């Protein structure tokens, strides 16, 4: 067995996992807090990457594009939430599925109109274009730096949810929306804000990942499915579970497709689907959200 190959594949998996973290947490949080199943979430990731491409052209610098793209996305997503999702808040949560699916279609159509169907390539910023030696294997520097950045941002999100007063409100709404509203939490505002920031984090992941993973029309859909698998495995709405789920899915996908080719993804979907039937709270979930 070639351990070097396995090592590189696993490292790729870990890098992908740390990118998957951001969209996964967003998806999980939006479901836990607002009971919105966001089928447009992957497209928000993809749109973040396309925004970055356009912003690099406009601003000339990669890092400023990475900063501005998520901010634009927050504005965009807040508008989206106010216009399309807030009007159906009183209906059963299942209705958020078709609406967000429609929104996803709109974004895909928009992307096709603006950027065409060809894959878009972004080159990594100049100082990070080289590679470093990890245990005797050459590995691109940018991947490690971007993965580290993504991990730092994720930790910050966890810290905010766990220790800040806004995080306390978020957890209160996730626990019991009516009760939280009764003691004075502005739930509507909070849901919109969390939806917006979840989209911003997805876009940030898309922006940071653009030089690593090629961006095309299928990107959004594949990111969405992967983060969904992660969220289900970890328990819908349970953030630490979702984080672990993201790494499990990323590793399983990378190692599986390296050794078992196309069958691995069928197995992953089968396992996760069965998980949802047997243990709806997820393998790691504890039966409560956020």
């Amino acid at each position: 067995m070639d351990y070097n190959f396995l090592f590189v594949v696993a490292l790729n998996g870990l890098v992908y996992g740390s990118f998957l973290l951001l969209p996964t947490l967003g998806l999980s949080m939006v479901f836990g807090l607002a009971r919105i199943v966001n089928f447009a979430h992957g497209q928000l990731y993809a749109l973040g990457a396309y925004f970055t491409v356009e912003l690099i052209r406009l601003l000339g610098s990669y890092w400023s594009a990475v900063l501005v793209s998520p901010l634009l996305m927050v504005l965009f997503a807040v508008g989206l939430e106010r216009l399309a999702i807030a009007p159906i808040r009183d209906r059963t949560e299942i209705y958020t599925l078709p609406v967000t699916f429609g929104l996803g279609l709109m974004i895909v159509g928009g992307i096709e109109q603006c950027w065409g169907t060809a894959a878009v390539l972004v080159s990594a910023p100049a100082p990070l274009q080289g590679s470093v030696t990890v245990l005797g294997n050459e590995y691109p520097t940018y991947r490690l730096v971007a993965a580290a950045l993504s991990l730092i941002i994720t930790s910050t999100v966890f810290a905010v949810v766990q220790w800040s007063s806004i995080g306390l409100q978020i957890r209160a709404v996730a626990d019991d929306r009516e009760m939280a509203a009764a003691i004075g939490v502005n739930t509507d505002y909070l849901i919109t804000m969390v939806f917006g920031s979840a989209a911003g984090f997805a876009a940030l992941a898309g922006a940071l990942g653009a030089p690593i993973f090629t961006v095309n029309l299928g990107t959004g859909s594949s990111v969405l499915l992967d983060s969904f698998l992660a969220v289900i495995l970890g328990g819908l709405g349970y953030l630490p579970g979702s984080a672990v789920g993201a790494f499990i899915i990323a590793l399983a996908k990378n190692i599986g497709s390296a050794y078992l080719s196309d069958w691995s993804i069928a197995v992953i979907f089968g396992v996760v689907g069965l998980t949802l039937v047997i243990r709806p709270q997820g393998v790691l979930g504890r039966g409560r959200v956020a």
Partner: protein
Amino acid sequence: MRRDVVSKIAPAPTAASLAEAFTARLLFLSSMALLLAFPFLGANEFTVTLLTEGLIFGIWAMSLDLLAGFTGLMSFGHASGLGLGAYTAGYFAQHVTSEFLIALPAAEIVVAVLAVLLGVVVGRISGVAFAIVTLAISQVLLQIGIAWLPVTGGMDGLIGVPVPTLFGYKLESGESFYLIVAVILILVYLALVRLANSPFGHTLQAIRLSEQRAAAIGINVRLHKCAIFVVSWLVAAIAGTLLVFMKGGTTPMVFNWYQSGYVLAVTMFGGLGTLLGPLVGAIIVTFLHDQAISLFKAWQFVFGLAFVLAVIFFPAGIAGIAIRTWNRLWESRC
């Protein structure tokens, strides 16, 4: 027996309600006649083909309506039944016989076995979990379609499925195939209307309104959910069989979750729980799609927008609008 009880409670029919029922039946019969006569009314070949596709799509949408509309189980993997029907019928036609009346039951048997096995599992869940598990099922089938090269042909799919025959007569012309599709559509529609109005259909409605309440009055909820899941897949497989013969093949992309979302969108656009709504919706969308892709590149944008607006503002779909207009018409007359 049930009917006797109802007739004792229901008021005697008035002249107005009889006239309404008569008009409805007349409208239905004439539209069926129009449907069957369509290719002979001077329509060109392309329109006939497009309508054939629309009718197949309509059968598929009606099969989803059984789950999403009647039972309240929003499936996000309804491409599974269609794709499975397409693959098995296509494979059977390639390797055994392309006689339609043998290939269709053969596909149905395979789909039934799988649907029963999966139905036992998905009968336990509902809501968002049901949507996601059905999506996972269709993704598993998609990957199997890609990976199981010797049988499915991998990414290329089944190619060169022979032209179907009916009692040995080759259905080569577009008109003859159209007629088969139209007849099957009418039979499926009538059967499903009967199913919807049967005690079984009413039980499904009870489950949709509240699973707990249905269980409390003694309904075996899991069994009913499993049963309607199987029926829905069987009807979807009919559409799949017709599709594979129409296109002369299929690719794994038939299982794509976008297809599942698409058929759900069309079913909701037509009007959940009305059967006729999803059918009409599917035909309309097929023709609109054909018009739209020649007009602008971003057809998905327009479709997505229309769909979002429909779900927010017209949750009852076009059938809801039609029913409201119909009722208003009869109220103002009488």
